[in-house]
Every structure is written in structure tokens, then in C-alpha cells.
């Protein structure tokens, strides 16, 4: 008994799961306690596409939103601090952003757009550091390597690209399409999941019914697992290397991920693996906590499985919405957030820039840094100091009145566009001016040169005259 109690003590923090759907804003995101099944939190107005929902440093929930009305066409990224989930920070993006991904330290956030362009922000100062075309087709999934030094992106056409963060962010590299480290091709259909494991291993799943294991630094295919059905979602129990594949038909297949292979691609066929059945629709999201597997399906149900005896512990229902995202958060974030504001704020999320800095010229770049080491900070804060504009955004979004703030945003946007236009015009005019000036100068030079010739003639004559005069004087003197 006492042993058990000791184990209870070292068990660690209680976990909770957050689920959201992309169907409509009304459904929102809901958080449940994993152990008790208690509903902890409900965030209205959240609808994010697959992989568009994540937890930033266990302090913020970040979700990308695709506006389905089509009237504005822009997307948005919302940030909710755990301690004030009623006051999200609304950031607008140039185009609709689908998948999101952040580094482990929560400093960089990447969003992938439907156009195949990727956006990279520094979250602490909100700067849009890089915009580049990552894929030709729509981006649908992204992941960082375990040490955050590589970014892996995938597209609906089945291609996977590996980017080195260092070369991507190299400020002297200003091209809009930096070369990727590798382009992994092999999947024939849309990618449905990317998982990175230490030692540069990447697991990808696709609708073509295969799961491939790659060594992404060398760009090598290590293993292929073939399944009967399209894989709609994968997750991994990191410690035990158990790979869970969610299928189109609602079953989940449990595999041991064995990457002992040193060389050469190999083909594995599936022979009677463990299958977890229960859900009806295609598995739309999977995630793993320490002791549970959480699966969500298109039939709006969320099952929590015990990974020891494969029993369902809890069943949840997200009201009438296909679950697109499941995120595990630790409950302590909620608890510590409620007794807040004793320590000064250490970790910031600034409003994300919509555009890269207009006065670009990387020369003047300064980087933001909170000098207090980040890991010490356990308080959260959204940095509102950056501009009045953002404050406006926030005050409007406080009322959860998104269209209102959108119109403001639109106004701002048009004014920014006008501004850009004006500056362009001004530049144009100055160019014209310069050309005119140079022409004028040429003209004047021409004009001046000709009289000069005459002048020199004149002066010569004058000189001659003077000389003759001098001579006369000399002649007179003696």
C-alpha cells in the first residue's frame, strides 16, 4: 500500500485533454480531465483545421482558424492564455493558415497556408521572421525535430520537406524560396501525420495506407509499413515506442515501432496486429499521454484507452462536431494559472505580425529577449504593449465579437496597403525625379560646354591683349 502511495507521488502532474472541431465556431474547444473525466474548461469560438491546434509551453492554447464565410478570405490565429481563457489574442494572417507547429521552447511558431506558403514567427516578439514557399500544394502537417533544429512539413500531394532552421532563418539569405535540406517523396497520397523521434527519425503516415519511417537528416527511407486501409492519424507513445495508427474504418492498430534497421528500405507487412475497435467514423485525431491513448473519430466521440489492458476508460462527446485536434495539457498549468500574478511575467506572447517588417533591411534587426531565463517563468502574459492596434483587437475580441474586429482589421489592412502603395509611389516619383535631374544636368553640361569653348577663345584673346599691353609698358619704361 505504501509503495503504491509512493508511486502516486512520483506519478507527476495530472493531465487533461483538449479537443476541438473545425465544423463551426460554436462548438469550440473543450478540456477534460484524463483521470476523472471531469469537464474542466470550455472555450467558445474555436474551430481549427487538423493540426491547427497546439499548446504553447503549457501556458497558451494556440489555434488557427479558417474563416469559412469566404467574405474576408483571411485566416487568423488565436491565442488563449490558460489563466484568462476568455480573452484570446487574435492575430490575422495574410492568408488562411491550416497546420501550426511550435518549437519545444515555445519561441518559434510556424503556420502553413493552403497555398503552400509557410510563415514563421517569433512568438515572444511577434515578428514574422520568414515567409517562404514550402510546397506547391496546400500544406497539411508540420513538425519540429526533437531538438528544434529542423522543421518538417508535408503537403496534400504526399511530399515531405525537411528544412534546416539555421539556413531557413539565415538573415543574409533573403530569397523567398530557400532550398530544403531534403524532399522526401514516397507517399502517393496526402500525408496525415508526422512524428519525430530523437536521432533524426521521422514517421509519416498517409492516406495511401502506408506508414514510412525516415532518417530525415540523410533523407533516407528506413522502413515502410503497409496497411489495408488509409491511415487517417498516427501517434506515438514516446517512451515505449508504440505506434498507433488510426484507420479510415475507425480501428486503431497498435504496433511496436522498431527502427533497429541500419540500412536500406525494407517493407513490412502487417500480420495480425493488435486492433482497437469501437469507434465508427474514421479516426480523425490521436494523441498519447503517459498512460492513455486518446482517440477521436469523425462520429464526434472521443475514447480514452488504457494502454495496459486496452480498455476504454472514458468516452466523451464533442457536440456534433468532427474532432480535428486533440492536445494534452498538464493540469498544473490551469491550477497555477488561477493563483496568479505574484511573480513578474517572464514569458510573453506578443501579437503576431501580419507582414514582415516593411522597412526590411535586415541591417537593423534587433532580437527580443527576456533576460530572465525562460524556463524559470511560470507566469504567462500576453504582451499588449506593442501597439494600440493590437489593443483594439483585443478589446474587440474580448466581446467575442470576431466580425467586428475583423472589420477593424480590414480597415487597418487597407490602410497598410494604401501606405505600401503610397511608399511605392513615392519611390517611383523619386526615381523619376532623379532621372529628370540627371537629364537636366546633362543638358546643362551641354549648354555649359559650348560657351566654355567660346569663353576660352575669348580669354585667350584677352590674355593676348594683356600680354601685348605689358609688352607695350615694358617698351615704354626703358
Amino acid at each position, binding site marked *: 500500500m505504501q509503495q503504491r502511495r509512493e508511486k502516486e507521488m512520483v506519478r507527476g502532474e495530472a493531465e487533461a485533454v483538449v479537443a476541438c472541431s473545425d465544423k463551426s465556431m460554436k462548438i469550440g474547444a473543450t478540456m477534460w480531465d484524463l483521470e476523472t473525466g471531469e469537464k474542466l474548461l470550455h472555450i467558445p469560438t474555436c474551430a481549427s483545421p487538423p493540426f491547427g491546434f497546439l499548446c504553447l509551453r503549457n501556458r497558451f492554447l494556440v489555434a488557427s482558424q479558417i474563416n469559412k464565410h469566404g467574405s474576408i478570405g483571411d485566416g487568423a490565429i488565436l491565442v488563449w492564455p490558460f489563466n484568462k481563457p476568455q480573452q484570446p489574442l487574435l492575430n490575422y494572417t495574410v492568408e488562411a493558415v491550416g497546420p501550426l507547429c511550435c518549437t519545444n521552447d515555445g519561441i518559434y511558431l510556424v503556420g502553413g497556408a493552403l497555398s503552400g506558403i509557410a510563415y514563421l514567427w*517569433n512568438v515572444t516578439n511577434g515578428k514574422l521572421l520568414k515567409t517562404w514557399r514550402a510546397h506547391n500544394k496546400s500544406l497539411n502537417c508540420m513538425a519540429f525535430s526533437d531538438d528544434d533544429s529542423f522543421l518538417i512539413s508535408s503537403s496534400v500531394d504526399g511530399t515531405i520537406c525537411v528544412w534546416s532552421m539555421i539556413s531557413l532563418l539565415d538573415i543574409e539569405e533573403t530569397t523567398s524560396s530557400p532550398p530544403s535540406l531534403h524532399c522526401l517523396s514516397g507517399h502517393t497520397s496526402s500525408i496525415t501525420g508526422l512524428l519525430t523521434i530523437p536521432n533524426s527519425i521521422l514517421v509519416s503516415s498517409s492516406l495511401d495506407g502506408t506508414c514510412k519511417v525516415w532518417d530525415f537528416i540523410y533523407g533516407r527511407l528506413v522502413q515502410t509499413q503497409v496497411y489495408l486501409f488509409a491511415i487517417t492519424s498516427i501517434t506515438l507513445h514516446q517512451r515505449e515506442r508504440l505506434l498507433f495508427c488510426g484507420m479510415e474504418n475507425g480501428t486503431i492498430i497498435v*504496433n511496436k515501432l522498431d527502427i*533497429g534497421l541500419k540500412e536500406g528500405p525494407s517493407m513490412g507487412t502487417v500480420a495480425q496486429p493488435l486492433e482497437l475497435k469501437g469507434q465508427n467514423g474514421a479516426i480523425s485525431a490521436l494523441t498519447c499521454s*503517459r498512460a492513455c491513448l486518446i482517440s477521436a473519430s469523425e462520429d464526434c466521440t472521443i475514447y480514452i484507452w488504457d494502454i495496459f489492458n486496452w480498455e476504454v476508460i472514458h468516452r466523451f462527446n464533442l457536440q456534433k462536431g468532427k474532432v480535428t485536434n486533440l492536445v494534452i495539457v498538464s493540469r498544473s498549468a490551469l491550477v497555477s494559472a488561477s493563483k496568479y500574478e505574484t511573480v513578474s511575467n517572464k514569458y510573453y506572447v506578443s501579437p503576431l505580425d501580419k507582414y514582415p517588417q516593411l522597412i526590411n533591411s535586415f541591417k537593423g*534587426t534587433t532580437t527580443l529577449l527576456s533576460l530572465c531565463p525562460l524556463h524559470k517563468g511560470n507566469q504567462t502574459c500576453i504582451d499588449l504593449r506593442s501597439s494600440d492596434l493590437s489593443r483594439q483587437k483585443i478589446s474587440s475580441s474580448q466581446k467575442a465579437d470576431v466580425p467586428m474586429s475583423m472589420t477593424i482589421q480590414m480597415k487597418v489592412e487597407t490602410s497598410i496597403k494604401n501606405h505600401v502603395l503610397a511608399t511605392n509611389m513615392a519611390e517611383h516619383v523619386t526615381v523619376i525625379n532623379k532621372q529628370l535631374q540627371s537629364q537636366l544636368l546633362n543638358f546643362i553640361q551641354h549648354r555649359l560646354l559650348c560657351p566654355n569653348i567660346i569663353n576660352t577663345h575669348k580669354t585667350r584673346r584677352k590674355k593676348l591683349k594683356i600680354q601685348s599691353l605689358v609688352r607695350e609698358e615694358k617698351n615704354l619704361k626703358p
Partner: protein
Amino acid sequence: MAVFDHFENMYDVAFKPRLLLSLIRDHLPDDSTPFSNPSNLSNLLSLIKTHSLLSESFAQSTPHKHAQAWKSAFASWLDRIYSLISTTVPDKCWAGISLLGVTCEECSSERFLESYSLWFQKLLPFLQSPADCHLVRVAACASMSDLFVRLSGYPKIKKDSSSCAVKVVQPTLKMLNDENSEAVWDAAVHLLCTIITSFPFSIRNHYESVESAIALKLLSGGCSLDMLKKLAHCLALLPKSKGDEESWSVMMQKILMLINDQLNLAFHGLEEETMRNMVTRLLFWPGKHPPSPLGGYVLADEVRNKASNTSEQSLMSNVSTLMFGCRMMLTNSYPVKVNVPVRLLLALVERILMVNGSLPQMSLPFMTAKQQENICSELPVLHLSSLELLTAIIKAMGSQLLPHAAYIVRIVTKYFKTCELPDIRIKVYSVAKNLLLTMGVGMALYLAQEVINNAFADLSNIEHKNGGMLNGSNLNASAGAPLPPGHRKRKHISTNGSLQAHDEGGGLGVEVPKNCPLTPISLRIAALETLEALVTVAGALKSEPWRSKVDSLLIVVAMDSFKEGPVSEETSMFQQKEPAATATDLQLAALRALLVSFLSFARVRPPYLAQGLELFRRGKQQTGTKLAEFCLHALLTLEVLIHPRALPLVDYAYANNHSFGEANSNLQHEYFGRNDHTPYGFPQAPPDYDDDLCARWFENGNEADVSLAKNTKHTPEPSEDCIANDPEVLDSNLLERAEMVSETATCADVEMKTVEDEINLKSDQPGESVVQFQESVSCTTNIPEAKTHSDVADDNNEKIVSESTLPHNEASHMESGQGSSVNKDFGLAFQSNSFGQRTSGSSILEEFALKFGQDNSLDDGDSFPDIVDGDPDSNSD
């Protein structure tokens, strides 16, 4: 106090006031008695601190009498101090002030809160009156700062205490400006720093005057290096007193402007204009008014005039000090987030590092050789401090530095190639190390080649002496080669059968060249540490061609470090106080790096594990040293690698409702799932023979070890197991494809490897291994004869084979870095039985294979089931 009024023991409360009183009586100078001996005072202090005589802390149950006694003793202590302070004799006054400081630190909270204002009043006059001698003023500053440190612990009385602090600032500044003794400056700066950190806002009104006072001292020269550092530290702390982003940035910009000015003067004619222009452009933003120079315009002009006259030396020391200030600003904590002009700082670093004292053609006529000499003599210090600044930037910024990482890489790689002085190289190594540790594999991709080239140059100056061992470490080894030439060469030797050749290696099978240390030890340590960092983060770069070179280098260096005799301790020229590095440190660094190189092998067996283990064992013998401590730790860590524990899939903390038995059976399903008997048959790719140990152990679980134990005991149980399982195995396996056979063969292989480990650990004598090797030849031929369907014999036989081949394996294995290949071939040999034909890829076993093949052909065929019989994998149940 009666003569025989004994107390209980040394912890007794009654003892403390007694001791305090007698100390006052005996050790403290009096009004009348002259101040005898300052060393008395230190004795007194140590007694007070050990017995905490001033703490007045006692349990509730303490008799009132003792409490009173202590109180009165304390009162008399204070009285004595007050009387000392009020004397005019400087040294008595000094003693009084110092003891008051001690009292501030030591007394109880109640006492402190009660009387701090009185003490403050006592101390303040000494700061204000200029008449007193330096000694007294220094002591007053120190005691005052003790007082403030203590005060900052009581936030309740913040208002009072900050008003006290405000009163102090002005006299302290005056002291800093007027006095001309460095000791006083030191004390004053210390006091200022205390006030800034404890009561930042009290100094706000004097911000400008503090800044100019410090700047004046900093720039006017004439201070010692230590003093300069303290001043720079104080300057770096100063923005805290305002605590906003603006003042931090302004201070940073002021310092950088000043550095820029000084560099412009110093580097005139030594650098290209473009660099200078770039820094200037970054420094002064267009359209933004630059802040006033540090310490105001007047001072700046003065300094400029002065600087043009003074020598380069003071210029350089100023720049180094200011850069130290930058470093402090980066690394000290700051209450709000700030904008760090990273780009500018990096440009500055680059600017300094690019100047190496060579004169461009055009400025040759404008500079004398003497001037060049002056500059060059000071350049190393400047380079060092700029590298330190770079390290500070990397540490402070962490992953936010990513946008500039490529730029830093360019600076570092460029500089690494050119720098030569050991002390500077050490710093560059540390920069590289920090970069690797902060940025991970991505950085390793960029930096690996440069680090390795340099580390090889620094670590293997031995290789030029006798070019045997480290051939593989040639810097320009072809990148595509799967194995470095050195390995191939040695493997070749071993396959030629001249096994005696290995004896040269001192029983360890590796030739160790005679060492003659040319590079300083501290440099070698730095190189090793950087390699360690590289291997740590770049575990993923396993098939990089440099990897095997690094591994062989590390084992050689580690073995070398054990051979070195007592090496004289080395002193660094920049820190003369203690020896920078000893041979033991080198040994420790080498073993550390070695351990990391073993552990980072994700999927292959570390090639030099046996030798490494031997080294760690030897290190463990040196009990009581740091080395032994580390070696113990290393052996513990490696134990998991040698004998991997197939840990259960999940920790049972959660599986409370599970009985252990169930879980266990679950486990076995898991591990032996590939026989398709269980629903857990996880899809399994055909096993690769070069596969790592761990994975296989994981597959085979503990059973392999168990069966091994049984085997070595020569008990019939395992074979009985075989019999028990036989039908089943046959049923399932007869129809299996060749793949399956190969799988089982691998499992046998695993067993052999386990035996091999045992032997590796025991036999270090190559001679012994040779004998066993010869034995093994005969044994191998025995195998087919053993086909008597007597399972016991078969089993034993196999055991002999595996055991006896191993020493040979070990020998070749050490050399080749691919030791498992031998076993692999052996595994194939089993397989060949069933097919009657084989070609062994490795020449080592060619002769066995031949015999094997012959015997096989003589045999009746039908060997397949027998082999399966002998297959240890079927021992499992």
C-alpha cells in the same frame, strides 16, 4: 558569574553569553587599552560565527535567566562597539565599524529591526565626512552594504529602508569622485552595486551622476584591471535602477558607441572600411537621435582628447572592460524584456576578430613598425574578450539566436582556421561547444567538419610521429569511404592470420603511439569537451564519415591519458592563480568524451567498448579521486548498454489493477509475438544482421540471458526445453521461408554475442585468445558430427563453438569497428547447412566456411530441423 557555574555542553545556551562576554573582555580593544593585534579580531569573528553568538536564538523552554544573560551580553557587545566607533583612533574606529557590519549580518531579526536605524545613523557620518582616513571609510562602506543587504530581506519596511538608501547615494558618489585611493573606490562601487540590486529605485534620481562618475573612472585610466571590471559591472547594473526597456537599450548603445569610438582610433589603418562602415551603420539608426555619449559630452570630449594621446594599451584595456560590461548586461537578469541589438553585437565581434594585425598594402606608409607592435601585443586580449562576448550572447539568447546562427557559424569557421594561440583556441572551442549545445543537430551539420579538423590537429600531434594508428584520422580522408583506411588496414592484418601482431598493443589490441604532448593540456581538454558536445548532439549523424574517426581518436586519447606519467601542472597566462589544468583533468575529459561516444551509438555496437570498459575499470581503482568517481558513474551507465534490461513495456505505477503475472504474460506476447502465435504479432521487418544489440535484446528479452546462464552451467534443462518445444517449433517453422531461418540464426548470434561480452570482460590476454581461437577451428568441424539428435550434445556443442570463436572475434572486433560481422557470418554458417551452399563475405571465416561446407556435403542433408532444434530461440516458452 560563579567560577564553578558549569554549563551542560557546547550546545548549551548558557555557554553562549558567557563566551561572548569573555570575548569582549579579552579580544576587543578598549578605550584605554591600545589596539593590540588585528589577527585577534579575525579569531574573534570566527568564534562568533561558529557559535552564532550574536543570534540570540534559543528554544522556548530556555530558562529566562539564560535569555536575560544573553541579552545583557549582547548589550555590552553593542556598547563596546559604539565606544570603539566614537574614538578618534583610526584603527579602533575601523574595528568598531567592521564589527558593526558583522553584527548586521549575524544578529536576530527582532534585534535588527529594532536597531537598524540607529546603526545606520552611526555609520552614515563616516561616509559623509571626508576627513577620516581611508581605512575607516572603506570599512564604513562595507558595513553599510552589509546593512543594506540585510535590510533588503524585509520588504515590510521598504519605505524606510529606501529612504536610508537615498541618503547614502550622494556621499558615496562624492567619495567616488573626490578620493583618489583605489580601495575607497572599490568599497564605494561595492556599496553602489548593493544599493542598485537591493533598492534599485532609490538611485533613480542620481542616475546621470552615477553614470558619469563611473564612466569617468572607467575611462580616465589609472585603475587596476580588477577595479575596471567592478566599475563595468556597476555600470551594467545601473539600468536596473530604472528597470525599463529604454534605459537598458540606451545604456547598451552608449557602451557600444564608446567601444566603436575607441576601436576606430585603435584600428585606424588596420581594417577595411566596409567593416567599420557596417558597424557604424548598425550603431546609428537613420532618423533616430543617438543618445548622449557615456558620461556626458564634456567627459566624452576629454576622453577623446586624452585617448588620441595615450597609448594603444589603455585603449585596448578600455575596450575589453567595456565589452565585459556588455557581457554583464546580457547575462544579468533584468526585470523586463529588452531589445538586444544582436546584429550589432555580432558585427562588433566580427570586426575585432577580423583584425589580426596585418597591415593592408595601402596603409603601410602610415604606420611604423612600433605602432604595429603595440597593436599586436594587445590584440589577443581583445580577441579573447570578444570571444567571451560571443559566448555570452549565445548563452543569453538561446534559441532566439537562430536567425543569426548562420552568421555566427561563418564568423566562427573563418576564425577557427586562422587562430593559433592556445588561449584563444580554447575560447573558440568553448564558443563552438555552446553553439552545438544550444542549437542541436542542425548546428552540428554546419560546424562538425571545422570542429573535427581542429580537434584532430590539437589532439593528435602524436600521429605525425608514427603514422600507424591514426591513419584514419587524416583530415582529408575521402568523405564517401564507408570505413576509414586505418580500419581496413588493421582488419586486413588480422585476417592474414598474424594474430601475434596484436600483442604489440599492450594487451588491448590497439597500438598506442608514444605520446609527446605539444599542445597544452588545457587546449586538449577544450578540444575534447567540444568533441563531446558534438557527439552528444549529433547522435543522429551516425553515418557521417567523421564519426568512426572521432571514435577511434577518443579511445586513443583516453588510453594515452592513462599512460602519461606525472606531467607538470600547467598555468594559464590569463589566470595565474591556480593551475589551469592537470593531467588528471585531461584524463577526466577524455573519459567523459569516451563515455558519450559509447552511449551515442544508437544502433550499432560501439567498436571500442571493450577497451573503454577496461579503462573505466582502471580509473575506478584510483579511489578517492574525481576520476574514480566518474568511472564508477560511467560503468553504471554502461551496464545498461552491456546488459540491456528489457524493461517492461509500461511502468506498473499505473497498472495497479494488474497482477504481475498477467503483465508478464503480456510482455512475453510482446516479445515473442513474431511467431504469429499471438494477436500481438507486430509487423516485423526481416532483421538486419548489423542491427544493434539493444533492439535484439529487446526482441529476445531476458530469455537469451537466461538460456545463456543455463548453457554455461552445462545443465540439460535448456535442451529439455528444446524438446518440449520441438514439435511446435517444427510445426510452425518447417514451412517457413528462409527468412525465418535467418532470423533464428540471428538469435543464436545474439547468444554468442552475450558470451562474447563475458569473455571480453575477462580475457585481456591476447595470448589466451589465440589459443582459444585455435581450439575453435576444431570445434567448428565438430558441428555436423553432433547431429546425433542428442540435444544435449548439440547444445553443448554450440556453446563451445560460440564461446571459442569469440576471443578471435574480440581481437578482430577491436580493430575493425564492425565486430559483429564475424558473428553474422557465423550465423550465416548455420543457415548454410540447410541450403548446402554458401559464400561467406568475410575472409575471416572462410576457412571455417569451407570446412563447414564440406562437412555439410558429407552429411545426409536434412539438417534444417536439427538446426532449429539447436536454436536457442526456441528455448523460449
